[in-house]
């Protein structure tokens, strides 16, 4: 009898004990879909790494702000030589790493040597190969010498791939990240969450929240439940179909913004029939972007007409280059010799937008006689088949790197787009530092891609944040991969 009573008591405790710990004033739990495989942003491409670490644990010489602009980071100031080949950075003085060691120019040199080393596993190593030399002039000054001028150098060194690490701790950053950021790593319960804590010796403004938990929840339905039950305070990316749950709920705020992700119908320009411009134009005419955007993102995304983010200052609206026109599409197909249409495969990676876009596009292309066979693949297989071996007809994927129009200049890239004029244009663009000139060149590049209909340009992925009411300081847009915590605070 006693044991039953004990059992009952413990069961009651279990059921009614501490329920959800509601957010206190300086504490937050944020849900993100993917768990990073490791926590070193300089040794892996996964966006999930940047979500946790970028500008929270680690910082670079520059940092990208919420509007995409380049701001001073660990470098308080810099000068650029007239030929655009030499950059001299003045470093901040009062910076310490989370392990207490001080930050100086040697750390900068170490970081870039590590990126450029032969056995480097930095995913974006090619971006930094423009660097010829990194010289320490004094503990607070570093000089970078470039092989050629680069219009995007300051942006690139502000990316997660180039955050500054210390030689003493770099090796362990995958599991025990030591950076200079406003938040220090506390613990990582694998499969569950990462906990960060405000770093009291941070050089900059003291962030309002003392503690942040990043919880990994992959399943949308589960995420909705967790938000509704008050177990998490927000997420940077809620599946579009579920936004309505929160849109009219006074306990939540929905923040829709842009990202750097252009969703394209990647087309293998190397092979028939896609090597034929008319076929690509016909396909472009057959895409009903509005229906697609409504269907996939419930209207939360912006259409694009070329490979360029709409929120970028250099953006040109080219969505009407090949407007939705089935008649025109059929005519073009006929002109190309495909009166009866053709069949093609569409390889889709395991992300919701790709799988759903694929289904809708297949239905749209069916109208002009193009039969798409949908092949769903996992990322590993996608990387091998599509990206590495170019063994595909069509695919749908989001290119999430900021300002990545340059990928079209590589004829060996998986699109197989080989245009000498475009290559020259991009080369000029890369070495141009003057803003107005850069704008002209970028606009021209967008136009070429749109007219050549290299890929089907679908839409810009939206950032669809859902946050508990009363939370402030979130980034509405996502000009760079990351979830920056420094400005978050609870109102009152």
């Amino acid at each position, binding site marked *: 009898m006693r044991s039953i009573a004990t059992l009952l008591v413990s069961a009651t405790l279990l059921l009614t004990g501490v329920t959800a710990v509601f957010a206190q004033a300086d504490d937050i739990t944020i849900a993100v879909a993917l768990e990073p495989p490791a926590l070193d942003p300089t040794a892996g491409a996964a966006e999930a790494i940047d979500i946790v670490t970028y500008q929270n644990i680690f910082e670079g010489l520059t940092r990208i702000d919420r509007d995409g602009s380049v701001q001073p980071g660990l470098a308080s100031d810099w000068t650029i030589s007239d030929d655009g080949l030499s950059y001299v950075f003045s470093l901040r003085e009062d910076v310490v790493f989370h392990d207490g060691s001080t930050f100086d120019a040697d750390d900068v040199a170490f970081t870039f040597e590590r990126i450029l080393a032969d056995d480097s596993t930095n995913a974006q190593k090619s971006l930094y190969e423009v660097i010829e030399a990194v010289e320490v002039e004094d503990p607070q000054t570093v000089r970078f010498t470039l092989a050629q001028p680069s219009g995007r150098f300051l942006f690139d060194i502000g990316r997660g791939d180039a955050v500054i690490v210390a030689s003493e701790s770099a090796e362990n950053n995958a599991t025990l990240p030591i950076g200079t950021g406003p938040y220090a790593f506390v613990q990582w319960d694998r499969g569950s969450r990462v906990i960060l804590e405000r770093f009291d010796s941070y050089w900059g403004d003291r962030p309002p929240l003392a503690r942040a938990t990043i919880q990994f929840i992959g*399943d*949308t*339905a589960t995420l*909705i439940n967790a938000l*509704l039950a008050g177990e998490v305070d927000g997420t940077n990316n809620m*599946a579009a*179909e*579920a936004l*309505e*749950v929160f849109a009219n709920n006074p306990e939540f705020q929905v923040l829709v913004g842009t990202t750097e992700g252009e969703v394209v119908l990647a087309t293998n320009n190397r092979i028939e029939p896609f090597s034929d411009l008319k076929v690509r134009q016909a396909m472009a005419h057959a895409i009903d972007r509005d*229906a697609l955007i*409504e*269907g996939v993102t419930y209207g939360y995304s912006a259409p694009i007409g070329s490979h360029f983010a709409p929120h970028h200052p250099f953006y040109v609206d080219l969505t009407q280059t090949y407007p939705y026109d089935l008649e025109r599409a059929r005519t073009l197909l006929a002109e190309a010799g495909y009166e009866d249409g053709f069949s093609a495969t569409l390889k889709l990676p*395991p992300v919701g937008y790709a*799988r*759903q876009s*694929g*289904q*809708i596009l*297949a*239905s749209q292309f*069916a109208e002009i006689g193009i039969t798409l066979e*949908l*092949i*769903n*693949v*996992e990322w590993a*297989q996608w990387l091998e088949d599509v990206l590495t071996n170019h063994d595909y007809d069509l695919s749908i994927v989001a290119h999430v790197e900021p300002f990545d129009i340059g990928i079209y200049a590589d004829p060996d890239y998986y699109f197989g787009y080989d245009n000498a004029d475009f290559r020259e244009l991009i080369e000029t663009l890369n070495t141009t530092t003057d803003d107005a000139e850069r704008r002209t060149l970028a606009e021209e590049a967008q136009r070429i891609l749109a007219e050549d209909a290299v890929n089907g340009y679908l839409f810009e992925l939206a950032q669809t944040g859902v946050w508990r009411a009363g939370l402030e300081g979130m980034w509405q847009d996502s000009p760079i991969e990351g979830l920056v915590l420094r400005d978050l605070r609870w109102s009152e």
Partner: protein
Amino acid sequence: MKAWQHPSFVVGAALSLIFAIVAMLSLVWTPYPITEIDIGRRFLGPSEAHWLGTDHLGRDMVSLIMRGTLTSFFVAAIAVLIGAGIGVPLGLVAAGFRGRAEWAVLRVSDFIFAFPALIVAILITTLFGPGAVNAIIAIGIFNIPVFARVTRGGALAIRPMAFVSAARLAGLDNWQIALRHLLPNIAGLVIVQATIQLSLGILAEAGLSYVGLGTQPPDTSLGLMLRDAQALFILHPFLSLVPGIAIVILVIALNLAGDGMRDLLDPRLRSQDTRNGVA
């Protein structure tokens, strides 16, 4: 006892049959094509044009349920055929030859049982890519030991019967005895097990589809419909309830039919009702 006097068998068999007919019908006709996507018509409630409304892509739910049932049935049925096609001969060999053959069959089936089914299913779909075919293979492999055991058990119960010795006396070898006497006498058992594995297969397909490794769009299955509707559960619970309830009813129907068949076929269980009745 006559079949129609067994109410749960009648209910189960009738429901299973209805599902099967509806599923087969989808091969030649559905109210709307299931690949026809019309975003403008999404999330419609039940109406005359769409009896069960439309889903998040504006597809007709009735058509989807029909086709989804077909896929679920098909996957489970082929997996059962694989399991029975390999498992039954293995079981017969084990019971018919005993000795080393039996030892080997038992070890192999123990071995398959020891693998966590879903992990193997995931490995298989990773090897060959996700899709219905690989779901079939994965589920089918786990049906093999089940059928092997049922067959062996049934055949071992038949083997000591005098008519088997009579057949041996008549010059039949082990193979001939297995085919002529053992197999026909355990056919009922195998069919019962097939019904039960069919219902388990449907659940397994749903599970695989849930982790994204089962049926792939634009095709659909009941499990995939459930997965698609999950994130919409709060906004449009109907989209989850329809395939969910369809799975529950279908699985129950198959189980009832299988249990009923077992009652009807197994004279041992039947005679329990008149236990001690003959003395």
